[in-house]
């Protein structure tokens, strides 16, 4: 086996177009080159006429640039006293310029850190376990309170959740009102005594008929109102627009319409103020919120009562559709719900504060707010100082 030939040193190409002009420029400028490059550049200048000419030309260009003439200066750049005073700026600007010195560059990260810690404290104070938000009853559950039997809510135990009580306390829609199809009133739930008394049965039946007629009339108004409220509950509107055939169906549709209205009232209620809510609630208590007074009254009462922080959309939802004799009672029920849901946590908070002194969530919140304010102030100062930094000094 023959030995491999030793690699020859790389020879430069003969074509000048393939020679590196920057290498020649470096050689011409006298830049220090590594040994191989120095050798190659010297070889090119020695053996390539074009490279030699390039090196000489570059030296000549460099010398010519140094002797390029200048146009005369026409301005005197000295600064007069008035200009100097303006350039110094106000004391605030001088202070901000001082803040932008390199020594104060730590101001910005420090400000961001303090602000972040403050925000963390605030979040921690807000989500602290002892700081539970006030429970808000769901709107659909509140709508059954608009039924004539809504007054029964007053008899519900205080421990029951608001939504649950609202659902259970609407027997008139399911069981309290006898259905004409079944022929036997109150067979589904409750009112067992009516089965034994025929006279009472007839009386109740005729009373139910009257109620059904009333509801049919109310349904027409409610359907108009629901249509005005927009497309949030199209199905319910469609149902209400139909002619009710039975008492149960009428009651069910009545509830559907009320539920749809309560749903539609929620967004508006959240925007209403407490000032609007109070008069509306008191008006409902005084019996001013007469049933079937039209959609205009209903729309006025709904957002106002809804703003009482305790799920009071119930009051607004029921006021236009409750029969005349029961309107004040239902309104009182709603107001009772609203008051109960807000006053109980408030009392509990007051109790915690009195027992434990300053609650930890309050401490966290206060510290967080102070830190966040301080960090924000520092950040503002840093930003202002950065703005006052002269851009020419970058």
């Amino acid at each position, binding site marked *: 086996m023959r030995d491999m030939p030793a690699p020859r040193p790389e020879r430069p190409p003969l074509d000048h177009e393939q020679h590196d002009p920057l290498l020649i420029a470096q050689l011409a400028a006298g830049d220090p080159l590594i040994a191989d490059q120095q050798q190659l550049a010297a070889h090119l200048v020695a053996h390539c006429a074009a490279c030699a000419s390039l090196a000489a030309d570059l030296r000549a260009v460099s010398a010519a*640039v140094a002797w390029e*003439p200048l146009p005369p200066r026409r301005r005197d750049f000295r600064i007069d006293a008035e200009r100097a005073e303006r*350039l110094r700026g106000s004391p605030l600007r001088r202070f901000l310029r001082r803040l932008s010195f390199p020594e104060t560059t730590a101001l910005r990260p420090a400000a961001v850190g303090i602000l972040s810690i403050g925000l963390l404290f605030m979040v921690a104070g807000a989500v602290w376990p002892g700081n539970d938000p006030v429970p808000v009853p769901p709107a659909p559950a509140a709508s059954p309170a608009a039924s004539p039997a809504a007054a029964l809510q007053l008899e519900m135990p205080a421990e029951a959740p608001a939504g649950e009580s609202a659902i259970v306390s609407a027997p008139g829609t399911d069981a309290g009102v006898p259905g004409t199809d079944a022929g036997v009133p109150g067979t589904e739930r409750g009112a067992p005594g009516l089965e034994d008394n025929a006279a009472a049965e007839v009386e109740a039946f005729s009373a139910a008929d009257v109620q059904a007629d009333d509801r049919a009339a109310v349904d027409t108004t409610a359907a108009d109102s629901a249509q005005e409220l927009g497309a949030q509950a199209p199905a319910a509107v469609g149902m209400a627009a139909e002619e009710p055939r039975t008492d149960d169906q009428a009651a069910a549709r009545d509830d559907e319409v009320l539920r749809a209205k309560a749903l539609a009232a929620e967004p508006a209620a959240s925007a209403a103020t407490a000032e609007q809510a109070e008069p509306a609630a008191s008006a409902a208590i005084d019996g001013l919120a007469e049933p079937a007074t039209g959609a205009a009254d209903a729309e006025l009462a709904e957002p106002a009562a809804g703003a009482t922080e305790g799920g009071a959309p119930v009051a607004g939802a029921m006021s236009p559709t409750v029969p005349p004799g029961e309107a004040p009672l239902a309104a009182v029920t709603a107001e009772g719900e609203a008051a109960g849901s807000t006053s109980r946590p408030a009392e509990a908070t007051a109790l915690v504060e009195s027992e434990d002194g300053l609650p930890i969530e309050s401490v966290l919140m206060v510290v967080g707010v102070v830190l966040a304010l301080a960090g924000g102030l520092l950040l503002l100062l840093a930003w202002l100082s950065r703005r006052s930094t002269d851009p020419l000094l970058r």
Partner: protein
Amino acid sequence: MAEALAGRLAAFDRLVELYQDYLFGMTVRIVRDRDIAEDAVQEAFFSAYRNLERFSGPSFRAWLTRIALNAAKDILRKRKRRPAEPYPEWEDEAWQPPAPEAEGPEQILLVAQQRAALARAMEGITEDQRAAIVLFDVQGYDYAEIAELTGVSVGTVKSRIHRGRVTLRERLGPAMELFRG
């Protein structure tokens, strides 16, 4: 210098007198426009006066140079939409570059042709290359100082200078004969 740093305007004005020709010469070679150069130098002195407290040495000249370079860049960027004719006074018969004394008319003509050709060729290279070449060939800064003044690496400075020179030679073309021995 200490008096100027203490806020005395008269002392600062003496520094202005000392450096204004240098700054104007450097800037006008780079921006190739006398008005822009004067504006840039004026801005540089204003900025220097405003921020004298921030000067931490060692070279006031280098500090001023850096500010003037930034001012020239800013003004050029702003006036990009309105390019000015370079050295319009060269076209004006009222002003011509001073010719060397004690030379014959042929020599004077040669020098004038050289300078005009070089001025045109300098227009053909980028501002960065021009700044690097002027700082190196005219002002005498070394690679490291130029890198510090312009905020780029030494390798970039070298590249700008060498590429700029090669481009200058190409731009000079036949006029290169004027510069050969």
